[in-house]
């Protein structure tokens, strides 16, 4: 049976590992390589590393850092940040990374997704959509943002996700900006509708504060990726930095009860 994936998402900022709240106030949480080593020991399902400086600064991906991470990583690795050409994606795959994530560049130009899928294979192309819930009086629904939540694309995430799927994305990661760092649970309405409307693998990021939140996501969506930042780098009410991950029994428990809830719906 294919299992849901529980995926730590690490943010890199100025060479260090950070965690943000609503995409702001990066707090230093440690060294990326050290975190990878810990997640190796804990046998994490997958790892996502996003360089939050690269797109904003218009910089090239930091290939040396990516190569170091890939060499250390004994689980599948997805890298994102500053990737805007198929050639860059190809270079990154060549460094030993399984999947390359694109966000801003893909939202601007869907053909980039197609061209990248042609270069590295559809299965390795991940599109990350940073989504914010509209909270105006007459503005309902959701909107996609880029550049760490600073730039609105004025597009509907469901339409954009469909377009990315049609263009050749192998996976879509839905990242809820307003849930980032809140640790109060995933946006289940958003997640359930995405699962209903899309046919490719999906992961959700933003809001997980406990294993129950992951169970609730699986209960809503079935076999998907449950990604989290804060949950796996902080411990306790004062957010002490402590890299953690469910052990095999805990993981089985999360998946079992989540999927049982899903199938009984």
């Amino acid at each position, binding site marked *: 049976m294919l299992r849901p994936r529980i995926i730590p998402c690490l943010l890199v900022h100025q060479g260090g590992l950070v965690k943000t709240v609503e995409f702001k106030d990066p707090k230093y949480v440690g060294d990326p390589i050290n975190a990878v080593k810990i997640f*190796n020991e804990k046998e994490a399902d997958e790892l996502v590393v996003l360089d939050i400086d690269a797109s904003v600064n218009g910089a090239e991906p930091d290939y040396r850092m990516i190569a170091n991470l890939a060499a250390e*990583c004994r689980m599948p690795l997805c890298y994102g940040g500053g990737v805007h050409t198929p050639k860059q994606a190809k270079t990154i795959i060549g460094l030993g990374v399984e999947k390359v994530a694109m966000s801003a560049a893909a939202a601007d130009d869907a053909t980039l997704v197609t061209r990248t899928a042609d270069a*590295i294979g559809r299965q390795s192309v991940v599109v990350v959509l940073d989504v914010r819930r509209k909270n105006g009086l007459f503005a309902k629904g959701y909107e996609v943002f880029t550049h760490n939540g600073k730039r609105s694309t004025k597009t509907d995430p469901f339409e954009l996700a469909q377009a990315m799927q049609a263009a050749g994305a192998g996976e879509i990661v839905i990242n809820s900006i307003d849930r980032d760092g809140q640790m109060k649970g995933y946006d289940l309405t958003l997640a359930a509708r995405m699962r209903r409307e899309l046919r490719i693998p999906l992961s959700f990021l933003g809001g997980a504060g406990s294993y129950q939140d992951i169970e609730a996501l699986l209960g809503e969506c079935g076999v998907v990726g449950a990604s989290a930042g804060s949950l796996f780098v902080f411990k306790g009410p004062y957010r002490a930095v402590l890299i953690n991950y469910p052990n095999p029994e805990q993981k089985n428990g999360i998946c079992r009860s989540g999927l049982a809830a899903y199938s009984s719906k």
Partner: protein
Amino acid sequence: MIHIVDYGLGNTQAFVNMYKRLGIEAVRAASGAELRGASKLILPGVGAFDHAMELLDASGMCQPLEWLVREDKVPVLGICVGMQLLAGSSDEGVSAGLGWVDGRVRSFAGNPASVALPMPHMGWNDVIPAAGSPLFKGLEEDARFYFLHSFYFECSDPASVAARADYGFQFHCAVQNGNVFGVQFHPEKSHHWGAALLKNFADL
């Protein structure tokens, strides 16, 4: 010495790292000359079937590999698209495969049993080894590996099926024909299960 065939596709470094951790010598080989002295071969690969076959052809290693595998009976382990190359042909392209294991590579999207499932087949899936398969020694009761693919190997000869996994139906996720082995999943990225399988291959 284990030689990892480096024709420009697949995560060769991950195999080097994994074998280093296991205390087993492994090197990359990027030409026929560098394949000399290989006692085991690993053939990685990602992406499209035809592209992989073209690159392997262009590397000049097809003929030396043919000699090593077919005549000297050096054990070879194909990984992911490297496993698919062992087949005679693929629905994904028009190139001929190596033809070391009888079968054809098929598309999940073309199979009614899996067409409704998310594609690609991605994530950790349980693997059911065939009885007595040397690759899965010690993994008979608990084998879990990371998959990332949209095409799968369909063996013509049931005796060549080394393991199955379920994705809408039980597909052939590992094959063996004598000294030729292949796995669709990524042992180099499958934690202790992957390490055990790569060690089993090294111990053959």
